[in-house]
């Protein structure tokens, strides 16, 4: 899969719940509608949490990939 172009990148490696969600919220607030945030996390709980967060807030979780315990999320701001 070719890399999705993102407008902003947020590194949450090493951070644990709820910091990846809180930082994602702050980052998404700084974007305009339709722009893409790339978030990288190592917290395994962030997989379900990001899906729930996107569900609730309405921002679209465009893609999620995992490689050696590193999760990459692409979120499109609503």
């Amino acid at each position, binding site marked *: 899969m070719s890399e999705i172009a993102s407008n902003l990148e947020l590194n949450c490696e*090493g*951070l*644990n*719940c*709820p*910091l990846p*969600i*809180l930082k*994602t*919220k702050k980052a998404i607030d700084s974007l305009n509608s339709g722009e893409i945030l790339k978030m990288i996390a190592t*917290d395994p709980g962030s997989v379900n949490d990001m899906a*729930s*967060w996107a569900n*609730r*807030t309405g921002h679209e979780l465009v893609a999620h990939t995992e490689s050696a315990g590193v999760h990459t999320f692409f979120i499109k701001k609503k």
Partner: protein
Amino acid sequence: MSDTKKLAIIASQGTLDWGYPPFILASTAAAMDMEAVIFFTFYGLPLLKKEIDAKVSPHSNPAMPMKMPFGSKDFQSINWPIPNAISGNVPGFDNMATMLMKETFKKKGVATIEQLRGMCQEFGVRFIACQMTMEVFGFEKEEFIDGVEYGGAATFLEYAADADISLFI
């Protein structure tokens, strides 16, 4: 927005372990576009102090795992069986357990309570301090962080009456 979900929390405990959940849940709720209010009462009130001096007490939490935040992975996974006679009687035991828990949290990338409290405020979470408890325990507004509201049971219940989630912690 009328369909905004509302979270109402009563924070009644001020130890390091019990101090976390109200701030974790309220900040996350706000990050999920919910409204959140924390009502601080009884032993939860010190969580509003400028300097949070929360400690953990293994003696009163028998199921608490006692693990070391340093050494090899195998060493760190050992759950040390501490007899009650030690956890309850050795001076400074709570201080040591608090230090170990803080160190573990830091190593695991968990935010400090102060950090989470700051993010709550940044996200617009409302903090209400129980006026009655302040009188009883002799707390002054000057000891608390800025941005705190003051009220009683009715103030909290007015908000909680329309809350979708209400938690007593």
